[in-house]
């Protein structure tokens, strides 16, 4: 890097803060004397000097720096409170060549995000975390933070932080330093010029570590919040020196930057055959069934609902699997009540030729209600013209909807006649095939061995009969 001849606004910043609402697009929203601005400048300068502005992604969660994306001329993500290290993990894993910065306050990192930071640090994610410790919640008006000092007055500790009731100020660097993976762990401060320069050096080292893929660097910066502390800026610097440093000593806790080689992670491979093998789908995979071009339904979004134990989930899985055999895109999304058995259960199944987006059927074009509460609950969300199949053995009320096709079918009764109530789910699968005309019952029977892998022949035969009976009931009564 050539020697500087001028110190001016670094190119790591956006020239005009066009994302910032209002008229003042030439200045930050930070209060006079706020440490965030100083640290921003040190980061922006390093990004320019290292020529990595374009490959850097700054991730800011909640706190006064929530609007970091107004300023940095990098990729930016604004994420939920405390979650920046988790998002940074995904960004870094998906784009190993990018420089990922998680920029967090103490309320954010040490309170709500306490576990996120530990896990990312423990995995040694390739990222820099800048941890702005100003011993307070700045953005929300000066409440106690995990790092608030003993005796410090905040809006939520009007008599001063009492360690007997509020615990002790958390020393985050010391905690991070207990973990094996981090490469660089340091605490610096903005309270005077020599320390701002040390902070600058730490910022540059941490960012070059991320650039060189050395892993996890953690830079804690003691920083002024003149507004939250209710003092002027220069006395705020004094306050750091007098009060914060005794509790938060300025130290390089660890620096393995030199000796650490670039991380090499195994590249994840997605092998469809392997997935099929793991999910035991191999037997289902070579049937190549033809879609029925004249089917009554082109695509289905169905809610199947009933008591736990009525085979709601297996009916859904069976439909999704058969759909897949026909070459449709499918999804199956279970939704259980608090108890897996005995309570209510429902699932969403989508079967369609185009790509499936959200897998929950919020506007189904079919509802299969196996009991009365399910009918009452789900007939409401059925789209007009949709199909309402309900189990007339257990439901003795009439549906209220008149703008849908109604199919009362004694599903449980049919299963009982076959000698086993448990096959009611396959009766509904047969009924589904008949109403939609998407599946041929014979083909479903052919698939039975793979749908009920490991089950006895007797069970298999019974399920085949159940499909057939459900199918025939619809054909005989509703054509």
């Amino acid at each position, binding site marked *: 890097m050539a020697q500087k*001849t001028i110190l001016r606004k670094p190119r790591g910043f956006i020239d005009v803060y066009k994302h910032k609402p209002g008229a003042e697009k030439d200045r930050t929203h930070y209060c006079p004397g706020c440490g965030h*601005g100083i640290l921003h*400048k040190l980061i922006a300068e390093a990004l320019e000097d290292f020529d990595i502005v374009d490959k850097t992604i700054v991730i800011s969660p909640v706190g006064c720096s929530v609007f970091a994306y107004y300023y940095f001329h990098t990729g930016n993500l604004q994420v939920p409170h405390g979650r920046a290290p988790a998002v940074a993990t995904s960004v870094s894993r998906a784009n190993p060549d990018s420089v990922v910065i998680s920029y967090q306050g103490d309320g954010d990192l040490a309170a709500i995000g306490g576990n996120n930071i530990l896990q990312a640090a423990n995995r040694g994610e390739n990222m820099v975390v800048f941890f702005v410790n100003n011993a307070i919640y700045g953005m929300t008006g000066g409440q106690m933070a995990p790092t608030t000092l003993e005796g410090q007055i905040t809006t939520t500790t009007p008599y001063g932080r009492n360690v007997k009731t509020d615990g002790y100020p958390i020393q985050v660097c010391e905690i991070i330093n207990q973990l094996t993976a981090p490469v660089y762990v340091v605490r610096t401060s903005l309270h005077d010029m020599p320390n701002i320069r040390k902070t600058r050096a730490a910022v540059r080292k941490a960012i070059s570590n991320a650039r060189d893929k050395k892993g996890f660097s953690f830079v804690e910066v003691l920083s002024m919040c003149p507004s939250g502390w209710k003092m002027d800026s220069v006395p705020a610097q004094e306050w750091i020196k007098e009060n914060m440093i005794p509790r938060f000593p300025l130290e390089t806790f660890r620096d393995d930057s030199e000796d650490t080689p670039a991380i090499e992670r195994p590249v994840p491979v997605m092998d469809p055959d392997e997935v099929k093998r793991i999910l035991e789908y191999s037997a289902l995979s070579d049937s190549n069934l033809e879609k029925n071009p004249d089917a009554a339904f082109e695509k289905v979004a169905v809610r199947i609902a009933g008591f736990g134990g009525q085979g709601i989930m297996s009916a859904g899985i069976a439909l999704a699997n058969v759909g897949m055999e026909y070459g449709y895109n499918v999804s199956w999304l279970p939704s259980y009540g608090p108890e897996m058995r005995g309570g209510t259960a429902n699932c969403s199944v989508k079967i369609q030729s185009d790509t499936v987006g959200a897998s929950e059927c919020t506007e189904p074009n079919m509802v299969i209600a196996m009991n009365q509460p399910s009918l009452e609950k789900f007939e409401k969300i059925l789209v007009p013209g949709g199909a309402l199949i309900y189990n007339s053995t257990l439901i003795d009320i009439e549906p209220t909807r008149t703008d849908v096709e109604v199919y009362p079918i004694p599903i449980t009764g049919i299963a009982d006649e076959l000698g086993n109530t448990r096959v009611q789910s396959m009766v509904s699968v047969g009924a589904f095939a008949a109403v939609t005309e998407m599946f041929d019952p014979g083909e479903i029977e052919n698939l039975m061995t793979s749908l009920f892998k490991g089950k006895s022949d007797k069970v298999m035969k019974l399920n085949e009969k159940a499909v057939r009976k459900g199918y025939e009931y619809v054909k005989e009564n509703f054509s």
Partner: protein
Amino acid sequence: MNENRKYPFSEIDPDICKGCGLCVASCPKGVLVISDKLNSKGFHFSEYVGEGCIGCGNCFYTCPEPSAVTVYLRNYVPEEVS
């Protein structure tokens, strides 16, 4: 900018400055002062007194506002910025 000024010197944008005074406290030569005047946002802004700057860069690095302070260093050549 006055082309006849001697390098190094510090230039503070009076309108962007928020008057926090950190630069004034950081200047080893005491050549920055808080003005009696107010800027359009109602801040008493910081000013360079006009001579004595040694180009240490303290005011630049301590200023939280990205574009408030520019320091033209000793080796600065005006043509560089166009």
